């Protein structure tokens, strides 16, 4: 899923400072699952904003909505009926959601309430970790199912650098050395001998973000 976290409230308050009527839109997709942008966060943020405004003696009207997803036009259109009544849309979806809001409601500013962080998963309650950078050209079959691009701080493709120490990365002793993980996994799979010595050729990054904004078209589905 896309993992995001709340922006500092001060930043949000500054963003909406000139408004007194805003629409706060949550998303039931990834950001709900990572506890950043679901209905609960909508309620919490709305209340926090109103609380802050009250301390300044200024009222603010906030309408609270949570959409099924903010990355599908049909859902985004669900606020069409009343979006125009508000001076700004504060979206606590991922960056996709915020942009979809902006694209659909061109006359109203769409503001981000979250910092979209990465694609990852939950390690345990309240802990999420990055797993994929969306390079568009997956090599996981070569690396024991552990992504060197995401899990190695330097995205090395041919083994660990000299900074790997006790299974940890030189960047942060809390971070596992991705290559250590890959090596262990390859060994467990009995693929170490065959895989490790093979020099992985220079990667084609054009399928990645480096190739410019990406788009997928399924012609068979297209109408």
């Amino acid at each position, binding site marked *: 899923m896309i993992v995001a976290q709340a922006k500092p409230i001060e930043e949000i308050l500054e963003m909406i400072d000139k408004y007194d009527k805003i629409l706060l839109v949550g998303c039931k997709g990834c950001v709900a699952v990572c506890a950043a942008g679901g209905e609960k966060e909508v309620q919490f943020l709305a209340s926090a904003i109103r609380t802050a405004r009250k301390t300044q003696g200024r009222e603010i009207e906030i309408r609270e909505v949570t959409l099924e997803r903010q990355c599908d036009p049909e859902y985004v259109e669900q606020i069409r009926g009343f979006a125009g009544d508000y001076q700004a849309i504060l979206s606590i979806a991922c960056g996709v959601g915020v942009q979809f809001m902006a694209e659909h409601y061109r006359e109203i500013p769409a503001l981000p309430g979250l910092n979209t962080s990465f694609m990852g998963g939950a390690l345990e309650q309240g802990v999420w970790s990055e797993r994929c950078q969306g390079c568009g050209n997956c090599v996981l079959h070569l690396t024991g199912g552990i992504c060197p691009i995401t899990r190695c*701080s*330097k*995205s*090395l*493709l*041919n*083994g*660990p*650098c*000299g*900074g*790997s*120490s*006790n*299974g940890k990365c*030189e*960047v*942060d002793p809390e971070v596992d*050395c991705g290559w*250590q993980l890959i*090596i262990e996994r390859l060994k467990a799979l009995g693929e170490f001998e065959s895989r*490790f*010595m093979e*020099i*992985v*050729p*220079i*990667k084609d*990054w054009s399928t990645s973000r480096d190739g410019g904004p990406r788009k997928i078209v399924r012609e068979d589905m297209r109408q």
Partner: protein
Amino acid sequence: MKTESRLEKVLEKGEFAVTSECGPPRGADPDLIRKKGELLKGVVDAVNVTDCQTSVVRMSSLSCCLILKEMGFDPIVQMVTRDRNRIAIQSDILGAAALGINNILCLSGDHQRFGDHPQAKNVYDIDSIQLIMTVKQMRDEGKFLSGEELTKVPRLFIGAAANPFADPFEIRALRLAKKVAAGAQFIQTQCIYNLKRFEEWMHRVVDMGLHEKVCILAGVTPMKSVGMARYMKNMVPGMDVPDEIIERLKGVPKEKQGEEGIKICIETIQRLREMEGVRGVHIMAIEWEEKVREIAEGAGLLPRPRI
């Protein structure tokens, strides 16, 4: 392909090679690098110039190499893949060769997290092994990475780094093999304090026959003080400083610790020289270049052979 590299020639002759390094200045003053160069005159066969080491911004390696070249050195340009994509890298390789630089050391580079610009975006378009392949392909096949032909090949003696002390230990020799397979001709290792561990690594290297395919220069760094030893032990990832070293430094008064460090360094070089497969020594006297001569002298490495 043979190059004009003095280092390559020294090694070819079967001499025990000596290299050292110069850290470029944090400013545009060329005299600072010249001053360092003076200290190494007649002491080394080649001199490395680091490439924004520890991700701290300094004068570019290539520019400093040129200054040292003018002073009569055979510089080794260090190149990290952190800051350049394959376009810039190939362009710099061509430039280096054109300017008469004969050696290149291919590195991935320290992560910027602990440098002076931790906010920077890193590149890592290719890794160090792929960089070795790149240089080799340009030199030996006369082709860019794209496969297109280039007009005049860059004749560079290709080096790489190895850290025998990083984890996981068991792949360290294998990784060296990968670098050799990619085209590395000389190797400069991480500084060695734990001789036992290094010996172990060397055994594996010899067992695999790698020492015959590549020239291994063992890295050494003199300790200035017990504080430095502790710092290296605890703070530098992939550094293995045994407690004996610390104990030994602790055993002498503070003002004598530097002297003791140099003594240790010399002893280390003498031990390394005995080891099968060790073809030279790379003396990294960090911000202490004035001591390189003393160390080389002490280790009986002077004078350097004439080529």
